């Protein structure tokens, strides 16, 4: 899933991609993500949490917007890598 694919039409708690359907909730600086496909719940912190949250709230979440939120290209790549490592995106 590339950042362009992050839609905003499903509501601000939903992030949908080609392989993932996630619902997220934020609690005290962490983000909890429910992966409907596997039924697993993940607890994310740091950049991956910020990416999920920003993507779900920015409506469309174009890469430049995410980059603004996350700081720079390296941060975005790092966050995506974190989400991949967690098995939340491909």
């Amino acid at each position: 899933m590339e950042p362009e694919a992050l839609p905003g039409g499903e509501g601000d708690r939903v992030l949908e991609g080609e392989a993932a359907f996630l619902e997220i909730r934020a609690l005290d600086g962490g983000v909890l993500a429910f992966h409907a496909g596997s039924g697993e719940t993940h607890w994310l912190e740091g950049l991956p949490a910020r990416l999920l949250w920003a993507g779900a709230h920015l409506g469309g979440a174009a890469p430049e917007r995410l980059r603004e939120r996350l700081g720079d290209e390296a941060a975005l790549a790092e966050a995506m890598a974190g989400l991949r490592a967690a098995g939340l995106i491909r």
Partner: protein
Amino acid sequence: MRIGQLSRSELAGRLARGGLSLATGPVTTRIRTSIPGVAAHLAALYADFPLGEADGIADFSCQLRPPRGVRRYYRPQVLFLADGRSVFKPLAYHQAGPMLEWGMNWCIASQLRDRLIFHAAALERGGRALLLAAPPGSGKSTLCAALACRGWRLLTDEAALVELGAGRVSVAGTARPVSLKNASIEAVQRLAPEAALSAPCRDTLKGTVAHMRPPPESVRRAQEPAAPAWLVFPRFVPGAPTRLTERSRPEAFMGLAANAFNYAALGRRAFHRTADLVERVACYDFRYSRLEEAVQVFDELATRREPSAVPGAGEPGYHGRPHGPGVDGAAAGGAGERAARHPVAPGR
């Protein structure tokens, strides 16, 4: 009418004929058996509970009976059947009372789908509910029994029930007897000599077990849920000093979800309801070895007026906006650093 208003022969007769309908808070169970030990168990521990409607619909229909064949006579055993199906291996005949308790627990944990069910004890004080979530052997029931003997209202020692509907989050329980095992039996007797305990049942799979009769006030108010205020993960550690430490809400969420019986079956509804609950409570880890000190800690907790909920939780339009350096601030760590911790997988 309450169970205690039936004579022993009336109780045995109802159990043997069509079955006895037992109302335990939001759950009604029909019990059918001719085993005298079950009637004695109910008479000793359930005297304050109301009878359900004789011809009403029960949530669960249970039967305890000896297996067919030689084991009726040689080293007799007992079977537990839920809706006519045997769900456990047979146990020794003298364990019929505890088997009824384990069977009713099984029914709630595996059959109830209209609520989120946590493997947790729950008690109420001043309108606020305390959840003690922990796996077996953590000292959860011992602590629960102690608090119930010291003025906390018992909701449950085993299965905390949370409504799935949107809106106010509340915790309910069946107020059934508290299950104690091995050293915890004596510990509770020492702390509360007035507590009514069943005769210890030895050589069970869990060792020696006894059940504590719930306080009458808890039974009388068993239909009354309470708003959650504290979520605590207790652990009995021999010789350890009493210690209550804060746990972060995300970590508490993961711990609570791991202790849910039907999280996987309910999927996203369970995810959001668990988050709804955790947003509203103060979360702690608790280690203890001395029961008296443990009770004091919770009595003190109950007198505090702490701002327990996430600000805005439960208000219309609240979306749990993240705060803190890990999400909004600039001090976030690398992507690999604590990117995803301990996923809760469907398993229950």
